[in-house]
C-alpha cells in the first residue's frame, strides 16, 4: 500500500525534456518497474482473478480450473455475509478513533514544541504507543480489559461497574479507545514536524502585533498546521480501517458481533472457512473502499508537485 501513492500518482510526462533524454533514461526505470510488477500488479491481478472463481479447499489444488462464478462472490459477500456490517464497524470506528487522536496528537505536539528540561524524554515517552508492535498493544489491552482486569478494578474504586469490554456493545468503545491510543503519536509526529517548520519570523510578527498565545494559536499556528494534520488524519484513517492485528489479538476469532471488522472477516473467510474466492472478493471490495480516502490523500498532498509546496 505504501508504494501505491507514488506509483498511482505518476503524472503523464510534463517536461518533455525528461522523456526525450533518450531510451536510456526510460530503461533505468526497468528495475523499479519490474519490482512494481511483481510486488503490486501481479498479486493484485491474481486477487482479482481469484475473486471471480469458486475457489475453496476442494478446488485449490488446480486453482486455475476452479469454476468461474463471475460476480457470484461479490453478490454473496454483500448479500449473505456480514460484510456490510463489518464495513460499517471498521469505517465508523476508524473515523471516531481518528477524531479522538487528532486533538490528542496536536496537543502533545504543542507541549513539546518549545524547549524545556527533559523535553527529549517526554518526546520519547510520547512515541511508546507508536513503536510498540500491534500484537503487543493488543495483548496489553486484552489483559487490561479482562472482566477482572486493571480497568474494571480502577472503575470499581470509583464505584462504577465496568462489565464486559471485550465482547458486547462496549467492545466497540474498547476498539475505538485502543485504536486512538495507538494512533495518536502519528498525529503528534506530523504535527510536531509542522510546528518546527513554522518560520520564526511569523512568531515574531505575531508577537510584534501584540497577539496573545490564544490568538496566536488560533490565527497563526493552527492554520499552518492544517496540511500536516490533514495528512496525519488520512494516514491514520487508512491505517485503522486496515488494522488487522490489533482487533485480532484484542477480541480473537470468531469476532464478537460489535467488533467484527473488515480485515478480520476477510482473514476468517480465507483461513478458517477456506473460501479463498469469497475472501478475495472481500479484499477487492475493501481495496475499493480504501481508495476513496486514498484519493483524497493524494489530492491533499499533491505528490506530483513537490516544488509547489516548497
Amino acid at each position, binding site marked *: 500500500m505504501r508504494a501505491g501513492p507514488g506509483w498511482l500518482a505518476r503524472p503523464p510526462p510534463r517536461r518533455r525534456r525528461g522523456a526525450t533524454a533518450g531510451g536510456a533514461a526510460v530503461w533505468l526505470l526497468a528495475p523499479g518497474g519490474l519490482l512494481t510488477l511483481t510486488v503490486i500488479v*501481479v*498479486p493484485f491481478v491474481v486477487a482479482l482473478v481469484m475473486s471471480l472463481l469458486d475457489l475453496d479447499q476442494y478446488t485449490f489444488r488446480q486453482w*486455475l480450473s476452479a469454476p468461474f462464478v463471475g460476480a457470484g462472490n461479490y453478490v454473496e459477500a454483500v448479500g449473505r455475509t456480514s460484510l456490510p456490517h463489518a464495513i460499517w464497524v471498521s469505517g465508523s470506528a476508524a473515523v471516531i478513533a481518528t477524531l479522538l487522536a487528532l486533538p490528542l496528537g496536536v496537543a502533545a505536539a504543542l507541549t513539546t514544541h518549545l524547549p524545556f528540561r527533559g523535553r527529549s524524554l517526554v518526546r520519547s515517552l510520547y512515541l511508546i504507543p507508536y513503536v510498540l508492535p500491534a500484537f503487543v498493544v493488543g495483548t496489553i489491552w486484552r489483559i487490561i480489559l479482562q472482566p477482572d482486569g486493571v480497568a474494571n478494578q480502577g472503575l470499581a474504586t470509583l464505584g462504577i461497574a465496568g462489565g*464486559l469490554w471485550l*465482547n*458486547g*456493545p462496549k467492545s466497540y468503545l474498547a476498539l475505538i479507545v485502543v485504536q486512538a491510543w495507538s494512533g495518536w503519536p502519528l498525529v503528534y509526529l506530523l504535527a510536531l514536524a509542522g510546528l518546527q517548520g513554522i518560520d520564526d519570523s511569523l512568531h515574531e510578527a505575531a508577537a510584534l502585533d501584540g497577539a496573545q498565545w490564544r490568538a496566536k494559536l488560533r490565527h497563526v499556528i493552527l492554520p499552518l498546521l492544517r496540511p500536516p494534520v490533514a495528512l496525519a488524519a488520512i494516514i491514520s484513517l487508512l491505517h485503522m480501517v486496515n488494522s488487522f492485528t490489533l482487533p485480532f489479538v484484542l477480541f480473537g*476469532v470468531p469476532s464478537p458481533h460489535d467488533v467484527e471488522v473488515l480485515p478480520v472477516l476477510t482473514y476468517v473467510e480465507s483461513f478458517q472457512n477456506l473460501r479463498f474466492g469469497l475472501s478475495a472478493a472481500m479484499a477487492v471490495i475493501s481495496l475499493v473502499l480504501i481508495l476513496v480516502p486514498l484519493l483524497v490523500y493524494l489530492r491533499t498532498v499533491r505528490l506530483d508537485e513537490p516544488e509547489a509546496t516548497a
Partner: protein
Amino acid sequence: MNASRGLLAAALAATVAIPVTACDPGSSAEDGRTLNVLIGANSIYPTEQKQWFADVSAKFQQQAGAKVTFETFASPTDELTKIQTSMLSGQGPDIYALGTTFTPTAYSTGAFVDLTADQWTKIGGRDRFLPATLGISGPDATHEVGIPFTSRPFVMAYNKELLAAAGIDKPASTWDGLRQQARQLTGAGRYGLAVAYGDGFDPWKFIWAMSIQAGNPLVSDGKARLTDPVTVKAYQTYLGWLATDKVVDPAATGWKNAQAIAAFGAGKAAFLPMVSATSKVTLDKSAVAGKYGYAVMPTVPPGATSLPSGGVGATSILSGDNLVIAKYSKNQDLALRLVNMLTTAESQEAYYRTFGELPTNAELANRLVADPALAAIVDSASKAHGTPFHGGWSKVQLALVNVVVQSVPNLAAGKVDDTSLNALLAQGQSEAQAALDKAK
C-alpha cells in the same frame, strides 16, 4: 481466457517458486535421498524437539541411507499457508504432521496419498495402531490419508484436596453429576469448574461431546444438525455453568485455555475439564502440584443418568497428530519407510518419554495402561471419537464457537437467553449447512 490463465499461472508459479526453491536447497526433487518433514513447533520442549530431529535423521540415515530435514510451523495458519504454496508449486515437504481435526480438510484438497493396502503393509499394517486413533484418518477404512502419529486425548483435571474436603470420593461420570459436584465445591472464593469461554476452540469440543453422547454427531449424511434439541440442551448446560449455576468464575468469559489452566493451578477451581496431558507441565510447577489427578470427562449427556440409545460414550474428540504424505512427493516409498520407523513401539516410546504425548502404537499403548498416573488419559485415548469427517468441518466448528462468543454478553448478565440462543443456533445451522453443501 485460457491463454491469460496460463500466463497468470506462470506468473504466480514464478513468484511462489522463487522463495520455495530459495529456502530449500536440499529439495527432495534434487537428489532423491532427502526427505522433508513439516511438523508443528513444540513450544513446551523446543530443545528436546531439536535433539529429536537430529536423532531421527541419524537413525534414518543408518536404516535407509537418506537424510531427513525437519521444518516447523508455529500455528495452523502457517501450516495451511505452507500446504497451499506447496500444492501450487508441486514441491515442498514430503510428509506433513497434521492436527486430527484438520485431516478432513486436508483430505478434501486431494493433495495427499490415499493409502493402499500395500502401502499400509509397508508401515506395519493398520493393526499396528490403536483402533480408536484411526477414526479420523479418512472418510472410511478404504480411503485413508492420515497415519496416526501421536495421541493427545482430552481429560479432566481435578483437585484431590478440594474433593476430599467436600467428601467427594471421585469425579462424576455424568454431566449433571459434575454440575452437582461443582455446586458443592463452589464457595469461599473458589469455583467448581475452570472453563475457558473465551477460547477459540475449547467451546465446540464441549458441545460436540455432549451432543454425540446424546446421539447427535452434529453432521450426518452431509446434513448439519446444530438446532437439534440435544445440542440446544448442550449449550444451555455449558453456558449455564457460568450464567445460572454460578460454578465458574465470571471472569472466565474472557479466558483462553491457558488462563483456565492457570486458575486451576492456583487452586481456585476444583475441576478443569477439557485439557490434554500437556497441561501436566504447567500444573506440576503450580500450587496444586502433587495434589491433582486426571479423570475422564463425563460420558453421559446432560439431563440423562445413563447413556441413551444411539448415544456414543465418547470421552474426547480424537485428538493428536496424523502423518500424511504429499501426492507430489517423488519419494513416497522413502516417506513410507520413515513413517514405518516413527510408528514402531520403540520410536513411539522414545517420543512419549521426551514429549509426554501418547503413542498411537497399540502394543505400546496397551503397556502404558498399567501406569496408574496415565490410566485416565490412556483410557480416554481408547474411548475418543472422531469428529465428523467432512471437508466443511472447519466452518461447522467455527459456527459452534461463534454461538458461544455471541452469547457472552448474556452470560455476563447472568442469563441463558433461549430466544437469542435459538436465533444464534439457527444462523449457525444455515452457515454450517451452506459449507457442507459446497462439498465436491
